[in-house]
């Protein structure tokens, strides 16, 4: 395009807006490395000289709140996402490739409806369901709930992507004598890598950040996840914001690193939807 009137106007405006937008994040980061007593009166001051006291206090808490939370979050997130990937890839494949129309279609609609169901609607009875299976307040129970709750999203992504893979590939492999199971895992699944990346990324972040479900399902007995751990730490530490911010920082770090490394895939995951509609 020819001749914008002021070539600096666009970057300047973009930068100004981004800086304003960034202020809360800056404050959060700065406060991690500031003495607790400095946070109240000077929230925006840079942490000079920086201190690691807050971080250390969180890491060495006698009840190991941070470490227990971290372990729980890692276990819950990893198991949920692994199961979700496998189950929703298979289910997505079934729905796209199944013979007959009516049933797969009805199932698909039923699953898509699940995308909009608020967890509050099912949490009350879910505690009963989990109790029946003796899964209430267990990591297993939370993982299974996560799988059930997020399977629609996985199926949505996988089935959308599956439609772009020519069915002839599978037919060729089947003619060569491979069973359905082998065709899927050896031929189809490797081709689904971009969809798998989207599912891993989005569900990983959502489940890591989940608050209400672990609060209710995991309960206090198994210890907290990072989000419920942060929530709990404000009870004791509210007056000592340094520790709260350090806890938030440490709990967010894994997800932040994950995001910064896989940024391109995040964008691609969203882009796929946005352009295809």
């Amino acid at each position, binding site marked *: *395009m020819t001749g914008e009137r002021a070539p600096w106007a*666009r970057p300047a405006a*973009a930068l100004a*807006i*981004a800086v304003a*937008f*960034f202020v*809360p*994040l800056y*404050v959060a980061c700065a406060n991690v490395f500031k003495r607790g007593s400095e*946070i*109240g009166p000077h*929230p925006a001051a840079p942490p000079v000289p920086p201190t690691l006291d807050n971080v250390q206090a969180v890491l060495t808490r006698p009840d190991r709140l941070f470490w227990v939370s971290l372990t729980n979050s890692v276990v819950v997130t990893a198991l949920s996402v692994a199961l979700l990937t496998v*189950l929703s890839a*298979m*289910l997505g494949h*079934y*729905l796209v490739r*199944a*013979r*007959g*129309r009516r049933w797969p279609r009805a199932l698909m609609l039923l699953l898509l*409806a699940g*995308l*909009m*169901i*608020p*967890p*509050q*609607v*099912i*949490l*009350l*009875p879910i505690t*009963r*369901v989990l109790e029946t299976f003796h899964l209430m307040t267990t990591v297993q129970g939370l993982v*299974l709930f996560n799988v*059930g709750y997020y*399977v629609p999203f996985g*199926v949505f992504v996988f089935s959308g992507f599956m439609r772009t893979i020519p069915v002839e590939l599978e037919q060729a492999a089947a003619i060569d004598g491979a069973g359905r199971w082998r065709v899927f895992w050896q031929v189809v699944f490797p081709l689904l890598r971009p969809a798998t990346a989207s599912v891993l990324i989005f569900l990983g*972040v959502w489940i890591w*950040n989940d*608050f209400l479900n672990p609060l*209710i399902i995991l309960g206090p007995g198994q210890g907290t996840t*990072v989000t419920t751990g*942060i929530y709990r730490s*404000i009870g004791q530490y509210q007056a000592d*914001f340094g520790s*709260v911010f350090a806890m*938030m920082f440490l*709990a*967010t770090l894994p*997800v932040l690193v994950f995001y910064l490394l896989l*940024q391109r895939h995040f*964008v691609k995951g*969203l*882009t796929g939807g*946005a*352009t295809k*509609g």
Partner: protein
Amino acid sequence: MGQGVLTKPILPRLRHFLAFGAPGITVYACFVLAPIVVSFGYSLTNYNPFSPPAEYVGLRNYRLLFQDPEFLLSLRVTTILTAIVVVVPNVLGLGIALLLDRRGWFYNALRTVFFTPVVLSTVVVSIIWIRLMADDGLINQALRGAGVDDPPGWLSDPAYALYSLGIIMSWQMLGFCVVVYLAGLQGVPHDLREAAAIDGAGPVARFRHITWPMLAPALTINTVVLLISAFKIYDHVQVITKGGPGAGTTATVAYNVIQTGFTANRQGYASAMAIVMLVIIAVACAVALRLLQRREVQL
């Protein structure tokens, strides 16, 4: 493939379903569908674990619900909040996406900044903003420094608290809209815009007739995603205001369901609330999708 049904025996199809479809469907049925049915069942009773024998009460809970000022207030609160969260990030997100629609590391870096809050936990975002919006927090310190003697109580004044929550959630969701719109913008063919420019169309006309129509799918995605996430807002309310200040000024329906069900222990009543909530969101999504997709088709 439809004709093949007659020639193919049923057994392989069943086997296919059992091997590939059943595991996912089973978990979904156990943990999502069955609970909805159970929830509906509860909603017809006065079930309360504090006074054990639950009795069938028919539709009484639903009738009571629409006379309950607390529930009506929560509907109002949820509607206002949803309106803010659907409109503000959509509009600002579009503006910022247009601004960032250039190549290069600079714009990529800014995009990263805008998207960061999307990957943060709602609890983290809430605590950050509690500090910013507290009376001795950064915002009011800055306002006082600028000579405003009586800055608003962002979270403590019932006239502001709801809108403050709206701002916080909009801040968190803004980056999502930016990225989706940017993706949409990248799908707008460059030659099309250039051709229009040569034909003498100004930037406004170019936007209206070329860019905006091409962004229809992005608008659909943003609106539906914002609608769904705004409607079930619980975390921010629980962490920041606990439904206050005062009685229910920021209590959303989602918040009231959990409060009534798990704290006041009126599970039958809470289930009725949850079912109403489900119906509303289903209708809202269906209407929004229909309207937006009709627009996409027309273009």
